């Protein structure tokens, strides 16, 4: 026994020595050395003749961000992140595109990008691995981290996140999913009078595939079978039926009125027109004529959230419009036999089954006033902290996904694209999101984290919370009746399709405004959307002008009044100087038209003196972007004399060039 041991002892010693050598080699030959060697080569190339300045040491790099309790070793391989010379270099060496705003000393890497900061091998650092589920975020979802410091209202700097948040709210996700701190919004219409409103065959087709009828609708597809769709339709169609109603107006007058009222500023007809309101080309195959007339008369009475203004048409005008719409906008592709078959399906269907479907699938998450169906509240899982959920809590079902793709973002992304992917029979309907919408909603969901606390020094809210602007009294009623804030904005509240009215009183002359309200015309020759013609009542007029001239003003303009009055704006010499500046020095005519000559980008300036107050023109010329942020106008540092000349030229009548 002893002999054998003596014999193999040298061998064992060699083995131990080799193992020792192996360990030393392993310790020395780190996987990152490959990248560091390559980086050094690039560095030598970039340095060119100035070889002395190359100061590169091999070895791991670590940034310790004490305030965030993080240690990131990412820069061990990502060596060029803070070196602008590497802006076109291949990864992992490329310059960080945002290094000037987010310093590495303060933030490190993983607080935004996620991943495993302490690891240096490729797969361990980027994740996920068996014991580290937080993988680095895909570019598409990166913006979820912005809200950590910048809050949930960040908009321009994180467009994908903002779009995801918007989609989440507009598509009514909050109707079925709780997010603590966010109010439940039920985005659908009340459904109490369906039998009086819609045709049964339409409802059946609508439930089966809403986007086939209305491509922009937010109503999801529940993937119901024929029988299920018929059952649900039969249940919803209970109650009094529509009364017989034969519109007896004039088609021609109706058509003229339809065009004059600029309905297609918001609605589209065969895809042409605005995108704020439903497509109309097949609307008469959906709604009974009587309902069309009720909607035109007062949409707010039927649905408080409706964005359609009350136009103030007379009863005869409404008759004409309904005659035109119900005769013209029918579904020509719909066969009579098919429709009759669908009506039969609905008639024979089981209403009680329909009620069960409506309750089970959460129709009440969006729709109110469904007679006979209970609102069970938010039936989906709570999403308050979905962004920090552990992957083990997410069920992949029978789908086999390799470990490196099993991440929370990937799961959410697939859930958005295909809600019933992981298990057949799930209740969540299909919103038929595009890839980019699914990515945006995923980005928003990932931002919903429990550990949302960063130290106070890191918090920098960007963007603005919703504006509380809600005028009371007469002006408030006018805004409400004509839904002005669907297109216009006042004090940060409203849409951005039409000009911002917050300073309109300082901007335009009262006489022009009076004329415009009676016959609204576009100021910019090429814009497709146009202000509809409302039948505004005279007393409303007065309230409107009073509010405009007293409240929708800007003191920066109002305070100029005294000094503008003293300017020699009618002096022919000054006008001549302005004319020269307009055409020669600044070539304003490249974008603006006067007497039908010039560019089409800015507003027509032929009669600008009748529209804008001189104070506004002077103020605006100082800095066009100061108020109209979206303006595509260059900002010149004009001298006082130049402003005087340009203002004088603009407000006076102009002859052709």
């Amino acid at each position, binding site marked *: 026994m002893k002999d054998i041991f003596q014999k193999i002892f040298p061998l064992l010693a060699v083995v131990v020595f080799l193992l020792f050598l192996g360990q030393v080699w392993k310790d020395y030959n780190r996987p990152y050395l490959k990248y560091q060697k390559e980086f050094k080569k690039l560095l030598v190339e970039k340095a060119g003749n100035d070889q002395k300045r190359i100061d590169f040491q091999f070895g791991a790099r670590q940034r310790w961000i004490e305030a965030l309790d993080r240690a990131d070793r990412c820069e061990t391989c990502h060596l060029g992140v803070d070196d602008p010379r590497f802006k076109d270099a291949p990864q992992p060496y490329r310059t960080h*595109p945002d290094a000037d705003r987010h310093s590495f000393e303060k933030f490190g890497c993983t607080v935004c990008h996620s991943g495993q900061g302490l690891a240096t091998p490729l797969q361990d650092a980027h994740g996920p691995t068996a014991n580290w589920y937080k993988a680095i975020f895909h570019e598409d*979802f990166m913006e979820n981290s912005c809200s950590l410091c910048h809050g949930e209202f960040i908009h321009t700097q994180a467009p994908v996140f903002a779009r995801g948040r918007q989609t989440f709210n507009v598509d009514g996700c909050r109707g079925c999913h709780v997010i603590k701190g966010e109010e439940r919004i039920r985005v659908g219409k009340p459904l109490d009078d369906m039998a009086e409103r819609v045709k049964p065959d339409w409802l059946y087709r609508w439930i089966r595939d809403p986007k086939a009828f209305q491509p922009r609708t937010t109503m999801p597809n529940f993937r119901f079978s024929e029988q299920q769709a018929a059952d649900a339709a039969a249940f919803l169609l209970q109650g009094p039926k529509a009364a017989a109603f034969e519109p007896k107006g004039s088609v021609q007058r109706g058509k003229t009125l339809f065009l004059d009222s600029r309905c297609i500023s918001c609605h589209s007809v065969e895809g042409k027109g605005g995108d704020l309101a439903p497509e109309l080309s097949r609307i008469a195959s959906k709604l009974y004529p009587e309902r069309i007339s009720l909607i035109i008369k007062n949409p707010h009475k039927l649905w408080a959230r409706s964005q359609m203004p009350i136009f103030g048409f007379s009863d005869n005008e409404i008759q004409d419009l309904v005659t035109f719409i119900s005769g013209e906008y029918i579904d020509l592709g719909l066969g009579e036999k098919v429709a009759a078959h669908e009506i039969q399906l609905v008639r024979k269907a089981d209403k009680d089954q329909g009620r069960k479907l409506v309750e089970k699938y959460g129709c009440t998450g969006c729709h109110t006033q469904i007679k006979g169906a209970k609102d069970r509240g938010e039936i989906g899982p709570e999403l308050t902290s979905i962004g920090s959920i552990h992957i083990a809590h997410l069920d992949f079902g029978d789908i086999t996904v390799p470990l490196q793709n099993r991440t929370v973002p990937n799961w959410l*992304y697939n859930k958005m694209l295909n809600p019933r992917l992981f298990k057949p029979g799930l209740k969540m309907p299909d919103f038929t999101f595009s890839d980019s919408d699914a990515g945006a909603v995923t980005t928003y969901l990932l931002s919903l984290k429990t550990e949302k606390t960063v130290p106070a020094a890191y918090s920098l809210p960007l963007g603005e919370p919703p504006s509380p602007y809600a005028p009371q009294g007469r002006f408030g009623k006018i805004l409400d009746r004509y839904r002005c804030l669907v297109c216009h904005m006042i004090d940060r509240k409203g849409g951005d399709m039409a000009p911002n009215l917050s300073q309109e009183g300082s901007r335009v002359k009262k006489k022009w405004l009076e004329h415009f309200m009676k016959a609204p015309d576009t100021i910019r020759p090429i814009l497709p959307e146009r202000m509809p013609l409302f039948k505004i009542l005279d007393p409303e007029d007065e309230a409107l002008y009073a509010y405009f001239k007293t409240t929708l003003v800007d003191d920066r303009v109002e305070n100029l009044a005294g000094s503008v009055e003293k300017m020699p704006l009618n002096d022919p010499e000054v006008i001549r100087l302005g004319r020269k500046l307009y055409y020669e020095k600044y070539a304003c005519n*490249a974008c603006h038209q006067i007497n039908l000559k010039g*560019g*089409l980008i800015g507003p027509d300036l032929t009669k600008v003196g009748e529209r804008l107050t001189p104070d506004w023109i002077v103020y605006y010329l100082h*800095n066009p972007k100061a108020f109209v942020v979206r303006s595509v106008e*260059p*900002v*010149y540092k004009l001298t006082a004399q130049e402003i005087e000349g340009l203002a004088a030229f603009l407000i006076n009548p102009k002859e052709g060039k």
Partner: protein
Amino acid sequence: MAGYWRRLAPAVGVVCVFLVLGGSNGQGAQTVPKFQLPQKPKSALTPVEQKGRTLYGYYCALCHGKTGKGDGFNSYNLTKPPRNFTDRARMAALSDSRIKKTILDGGAALGMSPDMPAWGGVLTDKEASDLTAYIRTLAKQDGGKK
């Protein structure tokens, strides 16, 4: 026995082919949803060039055209047609600093048409650099297509 199988082989082969084809056809008819990974953004542009593209679409494309051919909708209202950025020979003759100067100081400052405004009051120096980087790619893109 072996001979028997050999004679049968073609028939067996045909049956197999039918089975395989039939099976795959059946699966192809139903679209089985699959687990998808987010697509990497396909842009061939660097982040700097992408920033430049956004600015270009907002401020420049109205006259210079979306693809940089100098055919934007407002180009027809100008006294002199705007620069065609896809003209490789002419673009090669321009230095980056000159392009940037034109953006910031306007056409008139360099003896060209005053129809090109000076954007120095709107764009920062860095934004003008980003724009220049993007404008450079327009000639390349067009060359790539040919």
